[in-house]
């Protein structure tokens, strides 16, 4: 009974943590710009406003389903992530399954935005999927390095094996760096925000989305922020003994990401893929080599 309740509440928890992280990020960006910045709960206000819009414009069934698929896939992904002290969907949280489900959201988004027929949306989708081609490679190599090291794909075991400062960040720094760059790319921060790029393609896939659709997309995005940071925390920052440290570690990830995000300009798409297939991939392969040699 309690387990089921935890299962139901996990996505809600993820949503609120995601909102908090996003709000913190906006505040921090504002402070780096020497502005006062919006209140911490600004993303929540945005979502409420969007959901309370009077009308919706639809361009077809798939257009409506796109945001739903994004939110649904995000919720599913959250359920596969281990939380400290709670049991989630599978007793053996499987890294491979997780890596598979993580991309469903973007694919649903692509299908939905594709139906709107707006050229900006098509360009945005093409860029998003190409970028995915870029960051998946180092991410999977880094993940598999850990599988090779521990001999298991169980994410919960990853957390327990790293407890007591046996963090992978210290013991496998190369893999951690590659993993960080890949997760950073997955978050779509500068310089990898090629697919939203308001100045060029007018927010890309989202260009025709407004009102309640956009509200759903923002809910999905908040959960995605939680997922990416939690994923990095579980793999490299040693998980956590309780929820509070877990959130604090996620906050640390967000802070480091924001520091890069605020100061960097934007890549072109071919440069981004070239970058991903060169530096993080080489670093990840080096990390894999080290684990292979070291046994």
């Amino acid at each position, binding site marked *: 009974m309690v387990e089921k309740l935890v299962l139901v509440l996990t996505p809600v928890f993820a949503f609120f943590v995601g909102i908090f992280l996003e709000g913190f990020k*906006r505040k921090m960006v*504002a402070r780096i*710009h*020497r*502005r*006062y*910045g*919006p*209140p911490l709960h*600004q993303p929540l*206000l*945005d979502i*409420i*406003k969007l959901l*309370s*819009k*009077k*009308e*919706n*414009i639809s361009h077809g069934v798939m257009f409506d389903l796109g945001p739903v698929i994004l939110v649904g896939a995000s919720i599913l992904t959250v359920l596969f992530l281990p939380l400290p002290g709670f049991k989630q969907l599978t007793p053996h949280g499987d890294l491979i399954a997780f890596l598979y489900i993580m991309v469903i959201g973007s694919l649903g988004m692509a299908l939905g935005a594709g139906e709107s027929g707006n050229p900006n949306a098509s360009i945005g989708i093409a860029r998003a999927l190409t970028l995915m081609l870029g960051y998946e490679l180092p991410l999977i190599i880094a993940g598999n390095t850990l599988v090779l090291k521990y001999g298991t794909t169980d994410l919960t075991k990853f957390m327990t094996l790293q407890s007591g400062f046996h963090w992978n960040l210290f013991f496998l720094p190369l893999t951690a760096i590659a993993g960080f760059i890949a997760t950073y790319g997955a978050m779509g921060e500068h310089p990898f925000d090629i697919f939203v790029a*308001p*100045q060029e393609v*007018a*927010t890309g896939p*989202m*260009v*025709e*989305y*407004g*009102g309640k659709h*956009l509200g759903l997309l923002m809910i999905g995005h908040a959960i995605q922020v939680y997922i990416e940071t939690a994923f990095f925390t579980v793999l490299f920052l040693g998980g956590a003994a309780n929820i509070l440290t877990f959130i604090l570690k996620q906050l640390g990830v967000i802070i480091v990401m924001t520091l890069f995000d605020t100061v960097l300009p934007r890549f072109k798409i071919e440069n981004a893929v070239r970058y991903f297939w060169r530096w993080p991939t080489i670093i990840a392969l080096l990390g894999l080599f080290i684990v292979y040699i070291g046994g």
Partner: protein
Amino acid sequence: MELQETLEEGYVEILDHLRKRSLWMLHYCTACGAIELPPTITSRFDAERFGIAPFVTSRQSDILLVTGYINIKTLKRLITVYEQMLPPKYVIGFGSCTINGGIYWDSYAVLKRLDLYLPVDVYIAGCMPSPMAVLEGFRTLMKLIDEGKANGWKKYIENYDYYKANQRKVLKW
């Protein structure tokens, strides 16, 4: 029935109260007044602390900021953009050109009053209005939304024929 009405009213009131803290603006920057927007948004005056952020597409925006003179060609685009936005939506006329034509009073190409063609919620006077005035305009709009008085979009639906007639008269030139 009465209970439901009171509930609905309360609901709308709460929503309005929250809504006014998150306004995304579409800055229709075709005229000189737009140059006052960068300082309004960036570090000196920081409009984002009120939840006001610039956005790029009509579908996502709440405020249509018409920054300056409108002529016949821009009016066409302006109407398209306004009708693409999702209600509740608000229009801010920015600068004296939107109020009475400003320094283009006698021009053959520039239209004099914006609110003949689109329902304007707030006018910001000045040529050009300073960032303080712009922020003051935003604050006024927020207050109007909170009191439920920013009903330009409803007016547009109710008086659709009136607005359309005015627009057609000009566009036929």
